[in-house]
């Protein structure tokens, strides 16, 4: 039925692709079940046949735009393809991942179609065929339930939280034409991979992260010492990278690394949405922050409200006392 379909705009690039696609399939599933429409997927990129075949097991149709023109993310070309497809299929909902590509493409599409977009959504509610979405505002200190009265409804979804759904469909794969963009004003030149640093905080069992609440660079020693006492690795929030203290390989979050350690300790980190993105699925989360209202406490299992300069050294002492010689690095 026209007007009931859901299009998920999957990604074929590197980086956050898998997490985005998994989430899109899960929520797309849920919406199509309620709207009794078809679940369609748009996949744009270059050399993406395998990915398209994989995705077809989860959706009714994969529309593949495969061209060397799309080897890098090309805002104008990707927009043209998405707009053409949406105008042809007239879906009820278009879902993007809240990745850098989704954040770029969704508002472009919405602007072109003259509709709104709800970005960063983490929950969908379906009541009597009406859809509403939950999204953060005010740095994650407040949530908003929003509705959109126009079609299509365009949403970017926060990643994570969804299990990879079982492959339950045998969708068709349809190739769609990709022509050059006329009068292109944006020319992608190249995609640059992060330089290998030998540091992979995503592999660590224990991560102790410091944020802007650290204050001075020399105070980071407190965080590093606690990490060492626990046999874990030190990490940080984005402002510390922006100030030039660390490289991106130490950064946790949407524009850094996603970690899911056994234990994550956040020291002087407020818990902005983009930071939570990279750590909210950690097994046990401890937050140390002087602001009792800091959003980080909403995802933490244990919280200490107070000055990290006092608490963190005490923690290190206590951990050393308890663990004694258990630090593998000390044993060797």
């Amino acid at each position, binding site marked *: 039925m026209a007007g009931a379909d859901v299009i998920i705009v999957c990604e074929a*690039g590197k980086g956050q692709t898998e997490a985005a696609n998994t989430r899109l399939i899960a929520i797309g599933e849920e919406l199509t079940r309620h709207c009794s429409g078809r679940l369609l997927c748009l996949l744009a990129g270059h050399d993406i046949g395998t990915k398209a075949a994989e995705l077809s097991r989860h959706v009714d149709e994969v529309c593949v735009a495969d061209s060397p023109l799309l080897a890098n993310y090309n805002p104008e070309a990707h927009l043209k393809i998405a707009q053409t497809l949406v105008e042809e299929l007239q879906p009820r909902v278009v879902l993007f991942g809240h990745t850098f590509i989704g954040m770029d493409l969704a508002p472009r599409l919405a*602007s072109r179609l003259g509709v709104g977009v709800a970005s960063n959504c983490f929950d969908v509610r379906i009541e009597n065929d009406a859809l509403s979405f939950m999204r953060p505002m005010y740095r*994650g200190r407040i949530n908003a339930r*929003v509705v959109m009265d126009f079609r299509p409804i365009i949403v970017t979804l926060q990643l994570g939280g969804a299990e990879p759904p079982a492959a339950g469909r045998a969708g068709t794969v349809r190739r769609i034409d990709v022509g050059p963009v006329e009068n292109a004003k944006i020319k992608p*030149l190249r*995609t640059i991979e992060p330089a290998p640093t030998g540091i992979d905080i995503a592999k660590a069992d224990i991560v102790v992260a410091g944020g802007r609440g650290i204050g001075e660079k020399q105070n980071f020693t407190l965080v590093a010492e606690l990490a060492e006492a626990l046999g874990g690795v030190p990490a940080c929030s984005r402002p510390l990278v922006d100030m030039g203290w660390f490289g991106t390989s130490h950064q946790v979050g949407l524009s*850094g690394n996603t970690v899911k350690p056994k234990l994550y300790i956040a020291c002087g980190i407020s818990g902005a949405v983009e930071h939570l993105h990279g750590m909210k699925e950690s097994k*046990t989360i401890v937050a140390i922050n002087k602001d009792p209202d800091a959003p980080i406490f909403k995802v*933490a299992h244990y919280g200490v409200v107070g000055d990290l300069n006092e608490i963190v050294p*005490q923690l290190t002492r206590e951990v050393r006392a308890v663990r004694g010689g258990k630090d593998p690095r000390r044993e060797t």
Partner: protein
Amino acid sequence: MKIVTFAKHVPSSVVTPRIAHSGDRIDEDGLSHEVNEADLYAIEEALYQRSLHKGSVTAITIGPGRAKEALHIAYAKGVDQAIQVVDEALRGVNPVLNVMAAAKVVKKLEYDMIFAGIQAEDDLQGQFGIGLAEALGIPAVTAVTEIRASPGEKVATVMRELGGGFKEEIEVDLPCLLTIQFGIRRLRYTPVMAIVRSRSRKIEQVTVESLAIPTEGLQGNAPLRVMKLSYPEDGGRCELIRGSAEEAARKLVHKLVEAGVV
């Protein structure tokens, strides 16, 4: 090179705003405001580009009376001109109005590049820049972390983030709009006295009403309607550990040992 940069006056990041009785907006009473952090990076970058290419930087804010503080700060940082679109009715938080008002004001200016912060901390939508570029019919690149402009050739080569440490190098024709990502340049400290001194500098004010923007479609029928605001729940999951630093540390480590994570 002429650069226009936008600065939004948003609620201070260090407090949780109170939700108003109506439930669909926050209560501004007693709330303090600051310049949106990403917009500070945009201002800083605009000034840096001016230092390379000469020209001028114009800062614009859209919001109620108090929002001119954002322009005092922009002046203190070094911009050449400041314009406020005074929006007392919707207080600068209606995304559709903001884009239409910005487009009207910018169309009267000369510019090679327009900067906006990657997103505003209040609505966390990240749509203003793209919406404005679409309204003006100019190209936009988002999440920019590096700019090499050649105003003579009417082109710029920029670096943008793609997430997870990936980046993309893009060539874009001028005039263009760039949304500026955190960290593009170090933020320089702005002395309070410089802000105080800049309070006497001229701010050109235009009211939203004078821009003759069609107001139907702005309220009620907005593209995105907030039904209800709420404070995030923690599901009672977070156990707060109390006591002195020493006591708290001991209790916490004990719990972590019990839970088998330490």
